[in-house]
């Protein structure tokens, strides 16, 4: 007779098996969902990540384990790098690079903002002087990419260089992307004069269809020649963009912008959440990552604004240095923040379109930075 008594019954309850770490991680999951739902912090990712954290910390159920639903999704979609790359395809299909094509020089603002990545890399290594921290170069690089302010890039790089830190890095990346409206404005105001913030930029020129079709090829060509390690990211971004701009594959462009990116986002979020286990997330490393992440965003913003000031000088005052802050990516949040801070000084100064140039340049810039880190450290 199969023994079905009260003792095995009790042993099969969650109460009898819950560990403190799991309870705490479920709390973290709930906090992420709270931020997503109530505060509208990047809800498309933080809600699934938070729920994934709850599910994978349920005792006995093993949902995050190698046979569990979230564990399976993780191994199929994130370990292989497939999900972040498909998201990048969707981002490419959703992005209009017209503003960047009209103002190619704003690419330099996107370049400058990547300074946040590399300073954070140094910061992560320097943190090793503090007892309790022991980041390798690969881990420091994965943490540094938070400064790229780009979720899929961060997840892609972390899955390659530091899978154990992936949960914390993804949470930090998306949280700070949502916090861009709080982090950036003080830095922007501090580094610019009122006169600079007051600059009205001339209207963008018209960009024709052929330019938009050739643009993905130009970016991909340089990537092939100089930095093939960035080719998976840049390749899928430009592929998605070509689907959009070619105008002959409407069905596929629609699928990349909707079905694929939506389905993958649900699975990506749940799978990232499955990495929020107590033993990997509730460590001193996570505090370091959260601190370094904030630091990265601040440095990146500052570097972008300072490059903006340089361009302001060089162009004889035609460039409003505020748009440099949009170079961190965090599309389209950072561009909206630029617009808002600009309007504070001058009620008729709409910088949104001008900020979109450096904003999308930041996406390319951080993919390039990710490629460099992969090539130099990933070997």
């Amino acid at each position, binding site marked *: 007779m199969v023994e079905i008594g009260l003792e095995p019954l009790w042993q099969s309850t969650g109460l009898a098996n819950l560990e403190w*770490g799991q309870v705490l991680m479920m*709390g973290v999951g709930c*906090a992420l969902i709270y931020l997503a739902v109530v505060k509208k912090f990047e809800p498309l990712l933080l809600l699934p990540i938070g729920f994934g954290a709850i599910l994978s910390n349920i005792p006995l159920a093993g949902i995050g384990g190698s046979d569990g639903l979230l564990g399976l999704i993780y191994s199929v979609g994130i370990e292989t790098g497939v999900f972040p790359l498909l998201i990048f395809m969707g981002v490419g299909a959703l992005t209009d690079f017209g503003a960047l094509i009209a103002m190619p020089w704003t690419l330099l603002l996107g370049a400058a903002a990547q300074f946040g990545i590399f300073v954070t890399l140094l910061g992560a290594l320097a943190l090793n002087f503090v007892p309790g921290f022991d980041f390798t170069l690969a881990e420091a690089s994965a943490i540094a990419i938070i400064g790229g302010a780009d979720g899929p890039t961060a997840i892609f790089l972390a899955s390659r260089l530091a899978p154990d830190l992936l949960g914390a890095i993804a949470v930090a990346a998306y949280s700070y992307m949502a916090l861009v*409206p*709080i982090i950036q404005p003080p830095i922007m105001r501090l580094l610019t004069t009122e006169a600079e913030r007051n600059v009205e930029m001339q209207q963008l020129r018209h960009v024709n269809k052929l330019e938009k079709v050739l643009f993905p090829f130009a970016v991909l060509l340089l990537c092939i020649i100089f930095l093939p390690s960035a080719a998976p990211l840049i390749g899928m971004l430009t592929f998605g963009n070509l689907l959009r701009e070619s105008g002959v594959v409407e069905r596929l462009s629609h699928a990349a912008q909707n079905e694929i990116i939506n389905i993958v986002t649900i699975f990506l979020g749940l799978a990232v959440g499955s990495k929020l286990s107590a033993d990997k997330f509730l*460590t001193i490393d996570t505090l370091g990552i959260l601190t370094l992440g904030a630091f990265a965003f601040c440095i990146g913003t500052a570097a972008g604004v300072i490059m903006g000031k340089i361009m302001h000088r060089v162009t004889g005052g035609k460039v409003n240095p505020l748009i440099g802050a949009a170079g961190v990516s965090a599309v389209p949040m950072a561009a909206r923040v630029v617009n808002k801070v600009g309007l504070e000084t001058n009620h008729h100064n709409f910088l949104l379109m001008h900020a979109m140039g450096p904003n999308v340049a930041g996406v390319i810039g951080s993919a390039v930075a990710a490629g460099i880190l992969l090539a130099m450290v990933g070997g």
Partner: protein
Amino acid sequence: MPIEDLLLSGVNLMLLGMGIVFTFLLVLVFAMKGMSKLAMAVMERQGTVSTHASTPVLSGQDSATMRGDLVAVISAAINQYRSIRH
């Protein structure tokens, strides 16, 4: 296993099973009643405070607090976890 023993297991399983189903859903009844009360209280308070929570873009002050909250919550969790484990 003889069929009689199987049936005994089955009866055992039925009693336990229906017991758990009823217990579970009965507790859920009370959990839902509590939750509804809580929700109505919160909504009422919010109703007077205005529909603050649903503004899509964050106001500076509100979010600054909250960012403190996020780091504070995670820090507290990590500390607690470490103090328990060690």
